[in-house]
């Protein structure tokens, strides 16, 4: 039957896209086991980059710091962004369009410019550099992403469900928590994952705002370009991706956020 065939084709398509998404990741992992420092082929198996990595406290520190910053950023940005998108989407008020348009500058202006601007501004107000500044910057960059993604989900919400909850005596907070929230969880999760990605891969802001000596992993990677970054970087990236994958698959196993109707 054509329906079944189409479904099969669809799944095949999804699989090929997943393959496309993972192709460079696989190459990255593959190269972390390759002996050549310059990513030369043919492949020659070696664990030497992992051995080097184990001794490289600089990379390990930077990775830990990046993860910590990314987690804080994710939590803060997701909470603030979700709250804002609820307000933007569920209410009508003056100035709403303006606020929505204001989400674009952080996305549109290259991070480089934003980062520079932050650096100058934070110095101007005496905040200076350091992890707090880095987090402030990361959160700010992540918020628009969360808002856009969560709003996309909120657009599909059936408002009578909220009314039903209110008629049962639920106050605004309960309505949000028990009715609106479950519906937008997939959006929130997607938003949070993006926020994490934005922070975890954020080189520019960290580059400008972190203090010498405690740089994050992307900064380390970016600055090592000049000298040549070694497959050690691939090794740490491979480890991080594998661990996140395991954690996520476990999370997927035990939770239900893909949405249901």
């Amino acid at each position, binding site marked *: 039957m054509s329906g079944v065939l189409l479904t099969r084709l669809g799944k095949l398509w999804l699989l090929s896209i997943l393959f496309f998404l993972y192709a460079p990741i696989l190459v990255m992992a593959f190269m972390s086991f390759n002996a050549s420092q310059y990513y030369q082929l043919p492949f020659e198996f070696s664990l030497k980059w992992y051995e080097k990595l184990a001794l490289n406290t600089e990379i390990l520190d930077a990775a830990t710091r990046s993860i910590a910053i990314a987690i804080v950023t994710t939590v803060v940005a997701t909470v603030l962004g979700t709250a804002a998108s609820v307000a933007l989407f569920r209410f009508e008020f003056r100035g709403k369009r303006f606020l929505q348009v204001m989400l674009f500058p952080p996305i549109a202006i290259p991070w480089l410019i934003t980062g520079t601007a932050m650096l100058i501004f934070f110095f101007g107000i005496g905040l200076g550099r350091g992890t707090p500044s880095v987090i402030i910057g990361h959160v700010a960059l992540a918020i628009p992403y969360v808002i856009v993604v969560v709003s996309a989900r909120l657009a599909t919400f*059936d408002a*009578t*469900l909220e*009314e*039903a*909850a*209110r*008629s*049962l*005596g*639920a*106050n*605004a907070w*309960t*309505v949000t928590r*028990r*009715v609106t929230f*479950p*519906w937008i969880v997939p959006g929130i999760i997607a938003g949070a994952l993006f926020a994490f990605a934005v922070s975890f891969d954020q080189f520019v802001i960290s580059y400008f705002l972190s203090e010498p000596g405690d740089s994050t992993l992307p900064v380390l990677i970016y600055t090592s370009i000049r000298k040549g970054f070694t497959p050690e970087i691939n090794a740490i990236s491979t480890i991080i991706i594998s661990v996140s994958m395991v954690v996520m698959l476990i999370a997927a196993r035990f939770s239900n956020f893909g949405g*249901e*109707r």
Partner: protein
Amino acid sequence: MAEVSVKNVTKKFGNFTALDDVSMEFPDGGFFALLGPSGSGKTTLLRTIAGFLFADSGSIHIGNKSVDLIPVEKREIGMMFQNYALFPNMTIADNVGFGLRVRKVSSDEERRRIGEALELVQLSTLGDRKPHQLSGGQRQRVALARAIVTNPRVLLLDEPLSALDKSLRVDMQVELKRIQHEIGITTIFVTHDQEEALTLSDKIGILREGRMIQSGPPRSVYNNPVDRFTAEFLGDANIVAENDGNGRLNVSGNPSIKIPKGAETASALAVRPESLSISATEPKQEGLSKVHGRLVQRMFAGAMSTCIVQCGSHTYKMVARDQDVPNLSEGENIWLSWKSAQTIVIP
């Protein structure tokens, strides 16, 4: 538990007037039906009472206090939505228990009351399912259970039983009546089922195009409709005479239709299908109005049969139990008659 009064409420959607200066009293503990054609504003009125819509003018009182400044969640109402509005992410039991949990009822009590409510709507076994796994009627019952489980002061039901078969509907009617009686919840419900409205309610209100045309006890509205619309909408009505435009009733040249005293200038006379008697020969009793015609169609409809009779340019409808209708065949010439006291005068 609380009386509800609607005072001169007007509500517009854009420039469409959905409620037009509507007023009605719903005394404490009563059972009230709202009727009206599709699109007449019934749902809009319920939603305004609940507080989801803000009236453009007029106000709503619950328990003698204006609730115009009180948000929905503080009004202590229970509302059942026409499209059910079940929470898709929760099981049936969680849907029903939502209002209880909000009220911080202990979890034992919560479980007990969910159980009772589901029992009441005959869905005890489906507590673990999600709404999308239920049939239409089952969903409707969940919505009903959810609205009543919290024992609100006022219960607003938007066509609560429309998706149920007759026997289940009767069961639910009995239960609703019992609850309303036991706890004294003021219940306002919208229904299309006239029998339901007439048998259950203490008072009915008839809406038309956003206006409250008539309200009062069922029998009085049924027997004394204020206008032709109500006469024809609530129950059925054969119009037997109409005003000729010069202020006089025109009985289409049929002198055997008796015009009640004082009704000479009424706008119309009507008679209900169930008031009519049918006979092959002209009935001779005194005090009967009668018309002569031809039996066009006789339709079986379960408990009742319907006869369609053509009398000149008028078509009459008569209903009666099959056994109460004499053995007449379609096409025969017959007489329809009714006691003049049963003539309805439409002012």
